């Protein structure tokens, strides 16, 4: 009995794909993992690989044809002349799919060396199902991002294992790369009003440390509460709007970079925000953050002004749609930039946020 190859889902919103190219001649011997065909949508191209060793008996359609997701795409037989089942092309059997996996789930299955039937799930198999199952076996996509997906170099050397923080960064970068559709824009602004506002605030409260960055971050938290789509993430069903604002703020502590999470930040007064964020910064610099103090970020802020960096493109924190980048002032001009998930926000949306953020407004 030949083994069927099913048409994968490439985008969440597309129920069909186009057959872009057949990469193997019919009748050729193929091994598990060999590329067979390319399928595409308007947004992405995906190479379908063989799940087994055998001979490619046939492919449904020709390049340019539209195929239904979940339909049989082709057949692999034990011999080159094995007959293909005569029945009409049918959707993937329930045992193997339930509903067809997401593209991300397919990639993770392959990365972990799993089959669909290995992973418990209800309905459509998602990346989260695979992650959860793999994590239960002591492996995560961060491990993969940190090692298994990377080929060993040919030049002699040795492996220095990642620290926990480096694994965290690998997870963040992998999310930015694999999940977000990241864009970046920046805005030139006059930093003098913010500098004056922060200086006055510092004087009024007798603060030892400049409150400039915390105050800008506080303004961002308030904006996030007023503009739900910048306090959100994209999920299969649409935009997931967070109920509260957990403001992420980067803290460099020696060679470690933390993203501390100030929970329910939009509900705080400026003074409380500055004080609470200060506590988190000190905990980070002592490397003594509790797990919840570095988790659950919904929108984020970072600054590299300290190092005289005039522009930098932040990596989006997992499951956020916006991270604002504050930079150094040069000749009286500064830049506010932002990385954003283009699935949820347009450049226009983000430009408006940055424009608003570039000027202080007393919020107490």
């Amino acid at each position, binding site marked *: 009995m030949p083994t069927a190859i099913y048409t994968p889902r490439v985008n969440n919103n597309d129920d069909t794909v186009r057959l872009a190219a057949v990469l193997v001649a019919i009748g050729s011997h193929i091994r598990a993992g060999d590329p067979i065909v390319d399928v595409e949508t308007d947004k992405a191209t995906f190479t379908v690989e063989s799940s087994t060793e055998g001979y490619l008996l046939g492919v449904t359609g020709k390049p340019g044809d539209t195929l239904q997701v979940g339909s049989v795409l082709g057949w692999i037989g034990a011999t080159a002349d094995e007959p293909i089942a005569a029945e009409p092309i049918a959707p993937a059997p329930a045992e193997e799919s339930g509903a067809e996996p997401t593209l991300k789930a397919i990639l993770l299955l392959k990365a972990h060396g799993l089959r669909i039937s290995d992973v418990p799930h209800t309905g459509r198999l998602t990346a989260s199902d695979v992650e959860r199952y793999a994590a239960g076996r002591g492996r995560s996509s961060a491990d993969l991002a940190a090692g298994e997906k990377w080929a060993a170099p040919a030049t002699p050397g040795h492996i220095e294992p990642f620290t926990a923080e480096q694994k965290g960064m690998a997870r963040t970068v992998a999310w930015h790369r694999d999940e977000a559709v990241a864009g970046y824009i920046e805005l030139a602004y006059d930093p003098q009003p913010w500098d004056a506002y922060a200086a006055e605030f510092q004087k009024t409260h007798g*603060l*030892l440390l400049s409150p400039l960055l915390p105050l800008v971050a506080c303004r961002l938290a308030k904006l996030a509460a007023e503009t739900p789509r910048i306090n959100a993430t994209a999920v299969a069903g649409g935009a997931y709007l967070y109920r509260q604002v957990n403001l992420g703020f980067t803290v460099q502590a020696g060679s470690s970079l933390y993203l501390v999470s100030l929970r329910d930040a939009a509900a705080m007064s400026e003074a409380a925000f500055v*004080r609470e964020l200060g506590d988190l910064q000190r905990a980070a610099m002592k490397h003594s953050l509790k797990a919840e103090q570095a988790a659950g970020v919904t929108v984020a802020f970072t600054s590299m002004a300290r190092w005289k960096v005039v522009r930098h493109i932040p990596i989006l924190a997992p499951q956020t749609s916006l991270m604002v980048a504050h930079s150094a002032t040069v000749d009286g001009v500064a830049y506010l930039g932002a990385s954003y998930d283009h699935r949820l926000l347009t450049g226009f949306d983000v430009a408006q946020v940055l424009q608003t953020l570039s000027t202080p407004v007393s919020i107490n």
Partner: protein
Amino acid sequence: MAQTSRQQIHAKVVELARQLGRDASRLSFDEEIPAAGLLDSAAIMELILWFEDENGIAIPQEHLTLANLGTIDAMSAYVERAGRGSS
């Protein structure tokens, strides 16, 4: 635990300023550290963490004021009060 001297605090300020490419050797004990512009907020935070560690004290966030810790003299006085249990 022995309290850090003004000279030790001064030496730490000089060390932190040097990391930022600045010379703090002429900073006087009664000069406001933030206003001198030799250390940025992150460096002042490092100074405070070092100060806590050296003296075995934990400074509450609300004590991070210019009056309490804004100068080397003020820092020295703060740790003396902490030693008497009246900071």
